């Protein structure tokens, strides 16, 4: 069994990451805070079964994910995958030359990406279809392995992989839409 105070201390260091993920899941701070609190409470209640030396961070995210799936899923409906239409490879990349016109210097890619606001990036994530959202958050934002995510979501690893890939494409599509709304891109390519 883990030491109580140390467990609390270690768990707390992951609170900002858990909250970041929870906010993308619930799309509002109040629900996200509740979700993180439930997660910590549940983690602490079962910390006796947590084996020291195993991955505390993965364990906390697993609890967070399960709480979200069981409690928050139906609250706010996200777009369904079928509403997205075709998802293309390199969608954002192909719009880079146009986007680069909005940046003064001979612009590096990260400068072009700086055209997108933090809110746009967060919104693009939050608007992902439900089945893409969790794999993308866990893989690309929190850097869990495909295998860890497959375990957390209880789906085959191949499914995790294809959802991450499709989720990334959907996210790019959102970003291109935002850029178009702001007139950063004019064509409809």
């Amino acid at each position, binding site marked *: 069994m883990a030491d109580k105070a140390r467990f609390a201390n270690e768990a707390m260091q992951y609170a900002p990451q858990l909250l970041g993920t929870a906010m993308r899941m619930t799309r509002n701070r109040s629900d996200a805070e509740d979700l993180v609190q439930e997660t910590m409470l549940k983690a602490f209640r079962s910390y006796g079964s947590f084996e020291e030396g195993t991955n505390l961070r993965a364990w906390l995210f697993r609890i967070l994910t399960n709480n979200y799936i069981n409690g928050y899923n139906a609250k706010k409906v996200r777009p369904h995958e079928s509403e997205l239409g075709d998802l293309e490879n390199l969608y954002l990349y192909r719009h880079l030359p146009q986007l680069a016109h909005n940046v003064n210097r001979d612009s590096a890619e990260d400068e072009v990406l700086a055209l997108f606001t933090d809110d746009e990036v967060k919104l693009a994530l939050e608007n992902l279809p439900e089945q893409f959202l969790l794999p993308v958050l866990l893989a690309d934002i929190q850097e869990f392995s495909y295998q860890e995510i497959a375990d957390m979501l209880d789906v085959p690893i191949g499914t995790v*992989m294809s959802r991450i890939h499709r989720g990334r494409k959907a996210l790019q599509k959102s970003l291109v839409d935002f850029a178009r709304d702001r007139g950063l891109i004019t064509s409809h390519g």
Partner: protein
Amino acid sequence: MADCNETIEQLYAYLDRHLDNELRLEIDEHLRVCPDCQGRLEFEHTLKITIRERSREEPVTDELRQRLLDCFEIDLGDE
């Protein structure tokens, strides 16, 4: 050696280091001779990092911090 289409198709799996050796080597070979695909790969990598940096964490307010710490104050003996 893979061609551009095959490379683009496998770009994410390659980026995530999730390809079997044979396919990875074929794409490695292609990337060595194709600046276009190198650029595509680098962009996807940059994009992934940018998105992560901007959304990985949210600041925890003092109030929430206290709420969370209170979770740990519950005495297991009272359960």
